[in-house]
C-alpha cells in the first residue's frame, strides 16, 4: 500500500492509498474520491495529471491521450497508472473539480424527439424518480451527461441544453453522425417511452459567476446546447449583464433552435445574436462565415474584455482561442472526450 497525494491547482491536498495492482483512479475511487475522468482506458486524456515524485508504471494507453513529450515531462494518466512507491501528483484543476461521491447513474424516459435542422435531433428526457436521487435534474448550466442505451453498450456524451429544474426534465441537441451507433438508434428506432441511462452530470464548462465581464457565447452546430443552458439560466436569474451569441452552421438548412433563440431574446433583452452560415445559398442575409470569424470582427470593434464561452468542434475552439489571444478576453471551453 502506497500513499498518494494529489495536489490541486488551488493548493488543496487530496490523499489516498493505492495498491500496486490497482490503477490510481480506482484507488482514489475506492476512497470515495472521484477526479475527472471519462474513458477510463487511456483514450481521452481527461484524467491527466503530472507526477512530481514517486515511481509509476503505466498500462497501455493511446498517444492521443498522452503524447510522448507530455509523458517525458512527467504527465501521466490516473486510469492507467500504478504506484510503485509513495507518489505526489499535481492536478491541472481545482479541488472543486474533484467529486467526493460516485457519479450519479439514473434512468430516464425519452419523452419527445424531433429534428433540429437538417442534421441534428432535439431530445427531451424525463428522469425517473428513484430513492437515491429523487426526480430533480440537478447540474450546473453548461455541463454534459453521457447517455447510454440499455443493453447496447453504447454511451455518448452530450451537453444539456435545459436548465436545472425540480421536474426532472432534460433537453439535449444531438448531431446525427452518418454511421454513429447512437445516431442510428435515434434515426431508426427511438420512440417516446424508451428508457435511457444517464451518467453524470459531468464537466467543468460552466459560467464563471464571480466574473462581471460581458459574456460571449460562440457555438458551432450542436455546440449551441451548453450556451442555451447557460443563457436560459441567465434569463431565469434575470441577469442583466451584456451578452452575445454567435451561432454558426455550415448550410442554411442546418440552422435550428430558432424558437429557443427567439425566446431567449425576449427574456434577455440585452442579448445580441449573430447567426452565421459558412456556405450559404445566395439569399442568406445573416453573417457569412464561421462564428469564430464573426466573434473576431466583433472583438476588433470593441474595447470590451468579454468572457468567451466556446463550444463546438476543435477547429472552432482553436480559432476562437487564437482570435482572443493577446488579452482580448478569457476563453472557456470544454475539453470534450472523443467517445
Amino acid at each position, binding site marked *: 500500500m502506497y500513499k498518494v497525494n494529489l495536489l490541486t491547482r488551488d493548493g488543496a491536498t487530496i490523499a489516498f492509498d493505492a495498491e500496486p495492482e490497482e490503477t490510481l483512479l480506482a484507488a482514489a475511487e475506492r476512497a470515495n474520491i472521484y477526479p475527472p475522468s471519462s474513458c477510463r482506458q487511456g483514450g481521452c486524456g481527461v484524467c491527466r495529471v503530472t507526477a512530481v515524485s514517486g515511481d509509476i508504471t503505466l498500462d497501455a494507453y493511446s498517444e492521443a491521450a498522452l503524447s510522448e513529450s507530455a509523458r517525458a515531462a512527467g504527465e501521466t494518466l490516473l486510469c492507467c497508472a500504478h504506484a510503485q512507491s509513495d507518489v505526489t501528483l499535481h492536478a491541472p484543476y481545482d479541488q472543486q473539480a474533484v467529486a467526493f461521491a460516485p457519479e450519479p447513474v439514473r434512468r430516464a424516459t425519452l419523452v419527445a424527439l424531433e429534428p433540429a435542422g437538417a442534421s441534428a435531433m432535439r431530445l427531451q428526457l424525463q428522469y425517473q424518480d*428513484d430513492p437515491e436521487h*429523487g426526480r430533480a435534474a440537478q447540474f450546473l448550466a453548461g455541463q454534459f451527461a453521457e447517455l447510454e442505451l440499455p443493453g447496447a453498450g453504447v454511451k455518448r456524451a452530450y451537453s444539456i441544453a435545459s436548465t436545472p429544474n425540480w421536474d*426532472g426534465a432534460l433537453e439535449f441537441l444531438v448531431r446525427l453522425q452518418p454511421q454513429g451507433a447512437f445516431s442510428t438508434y435515434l434515426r431508426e428506432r427511438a420512440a417516446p417511452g424508451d428508457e435511457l441511462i444517464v451518467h453524470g452530470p459531468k464537466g467543468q464548462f460552466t459560467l464563471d*459567476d*464571480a466574473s462581471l465581464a460581458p459574456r460571449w457565447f460562440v457555438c458551432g452546430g450542436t455546440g449551441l446546447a451548453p450556451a442555451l443552458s447557460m443563457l436560459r439560466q441567465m434569463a431565469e436569474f434575470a441577469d442583466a449583464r451584456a451578452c452575445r451569441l454567435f451561432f454558426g452552421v455550415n448550410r442554411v438548412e442546418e440552422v435550428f433552435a430558432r424558437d429557443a433563440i427567439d425566446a431567449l431574446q425576449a427574456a434577455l433583452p440585452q442579448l445580441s445574436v449573430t447567426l452565421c452560415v459558412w456556405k450559404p445559398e445566395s439569399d442568406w442575409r445573416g453573417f457569412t462565415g464561421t462564428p469564430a470569424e464573426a466573434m473576431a470582427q466583433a472583438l476588433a470593434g470593441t474595447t470590451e474584455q468579454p468572457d468567451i464561452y466556446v463550444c463546438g468542434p476543435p477547429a472552432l475552439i482553436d480559432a476562437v482561442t487564437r482570435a482572443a489571444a493577446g488579452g482580448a478576453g478569457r476563453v472557456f471551453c470544454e475539453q470534450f472526450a472523443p467517445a
Partner: protein
Amino acid sequence: MFCYQCEQTYRSEEGAGCASAKGMCGKDAATADLQDILLHVCEGIGQYLTRARALSATDAEADRFILFAFFTTLTNVNFNAAKFVQLIQEAAQIRDRARALYEKAARDAAKLPETLHGPAAFVPAADMNGLLAQAGEAAVRKDAAILGDDVVGLRALVLYGLKGVCAYAHHARVLGEERDAIYAAVEHALDLLARNPKELGPLLDEALALGHANFAAMEALDAANTGAFGMPEPTNVRVTPIKGKAILVSGHDMKDLHAILEATKGTGVNVYTHGELLPAHSYPKLKAYPHLAGNYGGAWQDQQKEFAEFPGPIVMTSNCLIEPQPRYRGRIFTAGPVGWAGVRHIADEDFSQVVQAALALPGFTADAEEKRITVGFGRAAVLGVADKVIDAVKSGAIRHFFMIGGCDGAAPGRNYYSDFADATPDDTVILTLGCGKYRFNKHDFGTVGGLPRLLDMGQCNDAYSALVVATKLSEAFGVGVNELPLSLIVSWFEQKAAAVLLTLLALGVRNVRLGPTLPAFLTPALVDVLVGKFGVLPVGEAQADIDAALARAA
C-alpha cells in the same frame, strides 16, 4: 482590496490583512472594494441624518437601509459583486433624500443648512469599473501612512463594531422591533467616521457608545424573538435525521425559519436547522411544528461537507455562508442579506420553490440512530431556577460559572474552547452561546446541584440573555458582575462578536478572555489600552486559564 475584519484574516510576517485577489473567506477583490464604497456612501447618509435628527427630522427607511447594507458586508454574508453595484446606487439615492430632509428641516427651523463634505458629497461612478477606480477613497486603511496604525485600528474597531450592531438591529427589525436610540447611535458613528477622526479618545468613546447601542440592539432582538415565538424553554432536540423529504435551514433568522415551517405544513417535508438555528427548537411557537424534525451538522465551517451530503434543498439565512460547492450549488438558496453570484436568492420570503425542490429531491432514505441534546437555557429558564442556582452556589455545590461563548471558525487554535470545556471541574457550570459550542455540545458533562453542567443559552445573538442572567445573579448576591464567580471566555470570529465585546466593555465587565487570536486591527498599543482599562486577556493554555480564573474567584 484590503480587509482585516475577521479572525481568519491572512497573517504573515509583514502584518495581517487580506489584500490579494481573494480573501481567506473567498471574498474577491471587486466585492471587497464595492463593500467599502457602499459603507462610505452610508457614512454620507449618516452625516445628513444626524443633523436632520438634531432638528427632529428622521427617515426610518434610510435607517433600515443602513442596517441591511452593513449586514451584507459582514464576513461570510454576501459575495455578489453585482448586488453591491446596485446597493451603491440605491445608497446614493437615499443619501440625496437624506440631504433634502436635512435641508428642509434646517430651513423650517430658520437655520442655514451646512454644506457637507467627504462621503456626503461623494458621487459614485455609474458602473463597476468606475466604482472600482474610486475604491481608494473608501479603503479602511486609507490614512494609515499619515495617521499611523493606532488611529486606523481604532477606526476599524468602530466600523466593525458598527457592522455587528447593524446586523443585530436588522435581525430585530425584520421581526418588527426597532429602537430609535439604536438608529441615532448608528447615525452618530457614521457621522464620526465620515469626519476622518484622528484622536484616539473620541474613537474609544464612540466604540463604547456602540457597545451600549449594541446592548439595546440585543435587547430588541431578544424582545423580537421572544415576542414572536415565546420564551425559550429547555428542549431535547434530535441531532440525527429521520426518514423523509427534508429542508435544511442555516443562519440565524427565526422569521425565515418560521415562514419555511408554514410553507411546508402538510407537505410531509421535514425541516432541519443547521448551525446557529439550533436554538430555534427551544421557542414554543417554533417547536410546536411537528415537522421541525431536528438539527443537522455542526458549525458553519463544516458546511461544505454537510451541505453536500444533505439530501434536500438548503436555505442560507443571514450569516455564515461559504462558497457553495458544485454538488449542492443547484439546491442552495440564499435569503435576506446573504448572496452568492449564480445562486438562487429569495427576496420576498416566498419559499414555495424550496418546498418544490424538497419534494423533488430524495430526502433521507432511512432513520439514523436517535441522538439528542438539550438546548433552550435562555434567561427565563436559568432565572426560573435562580433559587436553586443561588443555593447551590451558597452551599458550595457550584464553585464557578464559565461562559464559553461566541463564534467558531476553521482556524487552528480553536480546540482551546473544547479543551477548556472538557477541563472545567465537575463543580462548575458551563454556560454557552454562539456556534463555538459545536465543538463540545455533544459531550456529556453530567449535572451539578441538580442542574445540567452544560447550559446552552442560544445563538451568538442571545448574548443579551447571558448578560441578564449575570446582572440578576449579581443582584441576588449583592455584588458587582465582576465579583461573581463567573468568567467569560469569548471566541470571536466576525463582527457580531466584535460588537458583543464592545458591549461587555461598555458595561464594565472585566477579565474577558478573548481568542483564539486578538483582532488584527488592534495594534499592540490598542491592546494595552484594552488590557489596562478593561482587563481583557488573550486566551492562553486551557488548564492554566481555568486555574487562573478559579484562583481569582477564590
